[in-house]
């Protein structure tokens, strides 16, 4: 879900209010978990695929949405077959696929800025403005930086492979985490520099000022 972003279009899905789509997604996922039967899963799954067609989203985007979860789904599938049955394994996987595709449909048909604005509006109803703003900014950063963290991980993997470390998770995780943290530092400075200083960043600056004085 987090790696897919807006796919421009004019369908009713593109024009539906973002908050309504978030609530629909929440409802669909709840239904899928509460009603544990093929009678609920099958029509919802078909409906999700149908909506991809209506929104004019190509099949390649469906595959892109599922690709990051492929290994995890495969693992769950094998474990379910081993402990339960092929039928249950298929059911569990189809349920996950339906939920991932439904979530991707939300991000593919909603501009991130519209989604963030809707979330901010929603949180504003029961949270102070600066907290709602911070939460929505955090969502936005997730959408933007998950692909970047993945790119960092790929670069580190290649560098470690070149040095002969093929399966050393410590050698992969340490530089990835350090590079990500260093980026996070500069990202927070960039957010301040772009005049969108959120209150918690202001507080951090004030703290720094007090320490210096």
């Amino acid at each position, binding site marked *: 879900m987090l790696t897919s972003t807006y796919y421009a279009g004019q369908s009713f899905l593109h024009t539906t209010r973002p908050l309504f789509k978030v609530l629909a997604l929440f409802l669909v996922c709840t239904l899928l978990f509460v009603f544990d039967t093929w009678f609920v899963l099958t029509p919802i799954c078909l409906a999700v695929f149908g909506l991809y067609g209506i929104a004019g989203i190509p099949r390649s985007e469906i595959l892109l949405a599922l690709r990051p979860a492929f290994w995890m789904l495969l693992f769950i599938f094998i474990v379910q077959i081993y402990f339960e049955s092929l039928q249950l394994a298929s059911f569990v996987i189809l349920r996950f696929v339906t939920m991932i595709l439904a979530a991707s449909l939300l991000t593919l048909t909603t501009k*991130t800025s519209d989604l963030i604005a809707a979330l901010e509006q929603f949180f504003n109803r029961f949270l102070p403005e600066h907290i709602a703003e911070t939460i929505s900014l955090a969502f936005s950063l997730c959408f933007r930086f998950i692909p970047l963290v993945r*790119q960092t991980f790929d670069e580190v993997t290649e560098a470690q492979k070149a040095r002969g470390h093929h399966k050393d998770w410590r050698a992969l995780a340490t530089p990835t985490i350090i590079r990500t943290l260093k980026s996070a530092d500069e990202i927070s400075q960039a957010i301040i*520099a772009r005049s969108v200083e959120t209150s918690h960043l202001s507080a951090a600056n004030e703290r720094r000022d007090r320490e210096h004085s």
Partner: protein
Amino acid sequence: MIKIENVGVSKENKTILAAISVTLTEPRIGIIGSNGSGKSTFAKLLNGLERATTGAVFVNDAPIGKNNKTALGKVGFVFQNPDNQIVFPIVVEDLAFGLKKSGLSKQQIQSRITTYLEQFGLRHLLERRTHELSGGEKQLIALIGVLLMEPEIIVLDEPTTLLDLRNRSILLKLLAELPQKLIIVSHDLALMAEMDRLLWIENGNIHQDGSPEAVISAYRQFAESES
């Protein structure tokens, strides 16, 4: 005009910048120096991203640091790595980010973004995903994100480091046409040679300050003697 009065920066008992005093009036000012010499810290002082431990920084007579928002409005900052500056997944959303709190309406924001992108021949990037842009495109979008805020001064930290030759020349052409005062931190001596004035920062001090020819020549001699 930028006035730096006796400014020092220390972190964890380590002096990053010693007490520096300098007045910057020229339209194009370059800053060079070895890695870790304090030049990025110096650049970040100019818009309040770094706070001076001692002394004060003034931009057009307004003190920087006491009122961060004023500084940020006057001085735009372009970071070395555009990936860390672009915070939204779609170009148009990212460019709108800084403008949202400017009091402009949605239509005015959209119109300003379109005008700037058209001005630089980048209208086709409007709806593109930011993580799919090339390095050069990202650097240009990061710069336009700053230009949209219409700052009086723009500070650029190593703007050409990640660019290929073609994108470097596009960026330099664009920078040459900007009306704003530019302060550029760089190791790119060909770019630095084009400046009106050059500061060489070494070990937290201004080692040399003058014309690009004189400073670059001394810097080259220093680098050769150190290697």
